[in-house]
């Protein structure tokens, strides 16, 4: 399953990140790395954007980017 499918209020563990080097670095500076625990806070109205939380960091991410994060 990928991160964009994670329902509001649920959490999961990141198993792999299939993104470009740049985006991967960005993810990692937010703590979004393999093994991290993510929690879905909110979706926008059209479900195009989602808010997730990793530890104490909340980040907004487009569904198209969340697709690149595999979770279990």
């Amino acid at each position: 399953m990928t991160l964009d499918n994670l329902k509001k209020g649920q959490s999961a563990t990141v198993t792999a990140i299939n993104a470009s080097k740049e985006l991967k670095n960005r993810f990692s500076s937010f703590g979004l790395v393999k093994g991290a625990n993510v929690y879905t806070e909110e979706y926008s109205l059209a479900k195009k954007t989602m808010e997730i939380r990793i530890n104490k960091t909340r980040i907004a991410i487009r569904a198209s980017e969340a697709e690149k994060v595999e979770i279990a």
Partner: protein
Amino acid sequence: MATIKVALVGQPNVGKSALINSVGNARLRVGNFSGVTVKKEVVRFSREGYDFEITDLPGSYSLTDYTIEERITKHYLDDNDYDLILNVVDSTNIERNLYLTTELLALNKKLVVALNMTDEAVKEGVNIDEHQLGKILGVPCVKTSAIEKTGIDELIQALIKTYNLRENRFHLQFSEVYEQEICHIVSFLEEKKIQCKISLKALAIKLLREDKETYQRFHEEPVWVELQPIVNNGYQHLYLHYDTKDLDDIFNDEKLALAKGAVAETVQFEKQVKTTFTDKIDSLLMHKFVGLPIFLFMMWGLFQLTFEVGSIPMDWIDAFFSLLIDATKSFLGDTELASVIADGAIAGVGAVVLFLPNIFILFLGIALLETTGYMSRVAFLLDGFFHKFGLHGKSFIPLVSGFGCSVPAYMAARTLKNDRDRLLTLFIIGFMSCGARLPIYVLFVGAFFAEHHAGNLLFLIYISGALLGIIAAKVLKMTAFKGDDEPFVMEMPKYRLPSLKLLWHTVSGQALMYLKKAGTFILLASVLVWFASNYPKQPEVEQQYQVKVEQAENETAISALNNELALYKLEHSYLGVIGHASEPFFAPLGYDWRMAVALETGLAAKEVVVATLGVLYGLGEEEDESSSGLVDKIRANISLPAGISFIVFVMIYLPCLAASLVFMREAGSWKYLAYLFVFTTVTAWILSFVAFNVAQALT
């Protein structure tokens, strides 16, 4: 007195600026980093017999090339001359903040860590043992709070002590495997007696991270032949050990492990707060259905404030400059010098200063949105819609500001961190009809349509402008700004109230920069426009009119004669000549040379269009849109299709000189202004042509 040069580095939203502002007697100098619009702030103060010069580097999550800010920070740290780095860290989110700290440690410069927001950390039950952390990282760590102004003296002591250290010990300990590879490279570099600005260990780390610039540097050197196999060997070992061939992944792993380890050993989380303050607010502001209406209401409030409250001091400023112009003229007499100073320079500068209240209030609002952390939520709420048109969630604020005035709108686009997003937004701001175009619309709508339709028509004009803008964004995105979308990954910081001092310093800095830069450009440009509309002189004609005026019988005749003269002078000025020359260009749109001149003077400022039309259609100069005389003249001289076509042209072409210059500055190059000019003029021409022909076919 010795000067300690400090590079201030931290992730966004850690209270970096606030911390530095809480140091007493600090003098701030605001400038730009060369070549970009990112603000550079240097703070100077003296303490304990030392002069401090602190350069506030833009907030960066890590030392990469991801955003302009991070590029600047990385290059500054690599290439500039400074004595030590002050790393500000958010104590409440220490683990993530330490990622950056480990990268800074890898640079092997003198470093001091400020554990900021201690007050919040205490409230949230986060207990940090700063001495132990200092031992692990090998650098002094000081607890500070910008709000409660604690730890500032200790921080300064630590800076002085670190500055006076003779040698810098490299304390960062990576995992055994990584350290081993570093060691191999370092011992080779030592043998070869390589000289380098940074330490050899830092250099080795850069090599192991495949840092482009380091490679470029070594590639030219003969030593490369021997160095390459050693580095390559190191890669192979790391690949094997980490089971991946991605060196960034490997270094990130090291970084995270270090941060995690340091936190595990030095931080205690006392209580687990279930719902925080931020959670509570977010459940309302980020709500699927309520979130947007709340935001729109806040925006409405901000624009009410900006343009309603802002108009009060604007009237004063306007009155002040009119007074100044009159005073100058009466002081210097009716001379050319008086005219160029009063009508050229003072009037031009006055037009710039006039926008200051707007800019100030709007920027105060924006600064509040940004510093409280709400702006990221707005981007979240709107990104879905704007993304469809190739824009970014944050484009909303500059676009809406454009309805008031394009000048602050162009400046507001700075909240967009990505170059391409910002440029695209800058290009379509002009489609949002600014306040100065309203008089033109009112005049033409009044001339051609019944009064009870006026309101609806005005609304239609504004809405169609905005729609055109969004369509233009889509078109530009598919053509000129083609390319993959920038990923949208953004932190949503905690809600925090900024200090008044920080707000003041942000807003006043922006206002000052506007005055300084736009002011100098505009001064020059206004003098040019003045020259074009006043030269060449027609002394003989003037003399003839002088005689006629003296012979005239009554006031009406005199003012008619004066108008005739003004018309003659304008028609034969350089501007008038240009108007005549451009007549063929505008003829397919149904305009005569007078409308062409009005549009051209409108490039200076939209307010001038109505005044020019007044002069050209034989009324006094003191015309405004409410005068029925001008409305009648327009109706008599301009056909309905030409009128509609004129409105369309005004909707789309360049806003005004002030806005154009601010655009150029924000876009970063005169090239973009040329593109904007061509883009808006061509679009305006085509749509006006269509409007003219459709209207003609219908009537």
